[in-house]
């Protein structure tokens, strides 16, 4: 079902956590060597904390607190590696499963919860510095790749990139899935990004499934190979290896910000959970397959690696505590979420006044006032 890994696949950590770089990984080793222990620990903590959040959110959905939850379970390394590779001035365009990416950049997890609870269609203000230039989710698959390309064109036109100063030059990364890769918009985004040399990294998380449809239906050939047709360098990385994900993304972003034009990365990973809480994966995939991927769990891998490097029991215990506290906090704040102001419906349809909206807002107020004692 799955197209074979490319021989040039970049992997640094084997599934059991041993340091075993593939030939394709050689050029990235200096970047990995340069990582301080504290950074490695941050990568690990990120993954564990967000997995706890993700599990909590799944539970909250089961308890009826959320309409839906799309778990990021299993994709932590691809997301942590890539998001940690982005510089502060970089821009991130998620699809809808990038909970790890968003929270790392500063988005409050409760804002994602609010989206999935049916309290908002957005959740956060991407222009508020505290959100780390993270755009809101896009549910129409592939659309965001064009928004990212346009944003990248804007960076070029405004000379906010490719000035030669990596501390200031801006770049961006857009996330999408193996299923989404079939959408025409993704193609057009590559055409525009290549044509205008947008400083853009196309980051495809190939988690092998688009709901119930295997990636082999989308492509008989490794997806990262598409990029070459646009003159875009591209690479396939083991997306369950946080170090490899970090290194390839950092390299691609820095090449893009230096004026090298767009880049593409295909991160091979696996959606270890259901598509969303409404989904039943037993209908379409085998437990053999699930188990084989469980053996490649990104967290276990990094755990083994850190352990071998000498990380202490206290460190691991501390991370577990942090994660539990984080998830608890989300649960408590979810339960405290209030109702929704109807102005969310009328208030922002337009940026400027609109007579029809005003008329309907007034009508609704009068109508409700007409029920003495309020509407049932």
């Amino acid at each position, binding site marked *: 079902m799955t197209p074979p890994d490319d021989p040039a696949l970049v992997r640094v950590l084997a599934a059991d956590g041993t340091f075993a770089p593939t030939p394709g990984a050689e050029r990235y080793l200096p970047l990995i060597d340069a990582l301080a222990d504290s950074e490695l620990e941050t990568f690990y903590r990120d993954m564990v904390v967000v997995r706890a959040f993700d599990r909590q959110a799944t539970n909250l959905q089961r308890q009826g607190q959320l309409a839906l939850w799309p778990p990021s379970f299993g994709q932590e390394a691809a997301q942590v590696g890539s998001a940690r590779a982005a510089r502060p001035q970089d821009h991130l365009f998620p699809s809808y499963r990038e909970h790890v990416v968003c929270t790392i950049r500063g988005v409050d997890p409760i804002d994602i919860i609010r989206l999935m609870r*049916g309290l908002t269609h957005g959740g956060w203000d991407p222009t508020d510095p505290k959100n780390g230039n993270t755009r809101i989710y896009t549910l*129409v698959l592939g659309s965001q790749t064009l928004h990212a390309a346009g944003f990248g064109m804007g960076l070029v036109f405004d000379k906010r990139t490719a000035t030669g100063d990596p501390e200031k030059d801006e770049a961006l990364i857009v996330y999408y899935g193996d299923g989404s890769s*079939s959408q025409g918009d993704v193609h057009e985004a590559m055409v525009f990004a290549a044509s205008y040399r947008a400083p853009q990294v196309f980051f495809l998380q190939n988690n092998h499934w*688009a709901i119930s449809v295997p990636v082999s*239906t*989308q492509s008989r050939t490794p997806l990262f190979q598409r990029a070459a047709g646009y003159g875009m360098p591209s690479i396939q990385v083991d997306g369950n290896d946080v170090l490899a994900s970090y290194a390839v993304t950092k390299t691609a972003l820095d090449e893009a910000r230096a004026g090298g034009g767009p880049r593409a990365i295909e991160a091979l990973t696996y959606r270890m959970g259901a598509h969303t809480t409404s989904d039943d994966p037993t209908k379409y995939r085998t437990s053999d397959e699930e188990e084989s991927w469980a053996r490649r769990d990104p967290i276990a891998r990094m755990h083994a690696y850190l352990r071998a490097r000498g990380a202490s029991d206290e460190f691991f215990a501390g991370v577990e505590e942090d994660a539990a506290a984080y998830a608890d906090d989300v649960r408590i704040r979810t339960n405290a979420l209030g109702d929704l102001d109807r102005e969310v419906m*009328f208030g922002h349809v337009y940026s400027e006044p609109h007579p029809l909206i005003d008329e309907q807002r007034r009508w609704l107020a009068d109508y409700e006032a007409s029920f003495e004692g309020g509407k049932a």
Partner: protein
Amino acid sequence: MSVVDQETSAAPASVVTMPFAKAINAGLRAALAADDHVLLMGEDIGPLGGVFRVTEGLQAEFGAERVLDTPLAESGIVGTAIGLAMAGFRPVCEIQFDGFVFPAFDQITSQLAKLTNRHEGALPFPVVIRIPYGGHIGAVEHHQESPEAYFAHTPGLRVVSPSTPNDAYWMIQDAITSNDPIIFLEPKAKYWMKGEVDTSARALPLHASRVVRRGTDVTLVGHGAMVTTLLQAAALAEGEGTSCEVIDLRSISPIDYGPILDSVRRTGRMVYAQEASGFTSVGSEVAATVMEKAFFALEAPVLRVSGFDTPFPPAKLEGLFLPDADRILEAVDRALAY
């Protein structure tokens, strides 16, 4: 063409009770069995049976070349369905949710709708596009919309929407045997609603509207899930001494105006209710046409009750956005006050 309350007459042996989604499933199965060039295509309609399980079991029964899990691309689904129709097939496409039909809009509007005309009738384009539509399921953005106006405005398309399991069963089969492209709107709020399906004979032609409740004071008209709400409103109105006639449009394009005009000529008052935003909508069309054709019969303008002219709001506000029986009654009262 109108027949009152088909579903409540005494049930013969051929009558089975089943939920709406199962009725479509049974209709699809019958169509697949009747013609080996009928095929289903869409996202997740194979082993998963569709996100609403409407196609459950059909791939197992008819094979992966009759029930296709396609690549994830709506323009691709409709565009290749057109090519399949050129090759002699009768494709039935599923769009997973209302809000995801727009990537296919060009293929639907500039190709599918126009190809029979462009070919001057030399070949038919019997493509059905099934779209679960409408609200009431508390879902996230793009999953609760009512896009019927876009299709109704497009010459060359037919647009229908069943509101009962019996209609669902028959209308999907009639849509598939029709030689014209049909947008088949399934009110997802009704998927779990049970009702009697008479598998022995269809009650009405595909494009007929139907009087579902008789009344004398005000005519209530709507389509899809809104028919249930209209019936609720009519029941409440009865309690207040107002007798409402309720008509299910069934076919949104063309519209069978006969039963509606008959009714309005008797009642003199009419309310159209719809989940879609009201501006330039199907409700606008029906109101304008009924006022034109029954001008002297009307005691009050035809009033419309619609979703507001805002995007469909976050789920926690859907109850505020979607017209309910009370909002319909408010319009009934206004109509009566003229």
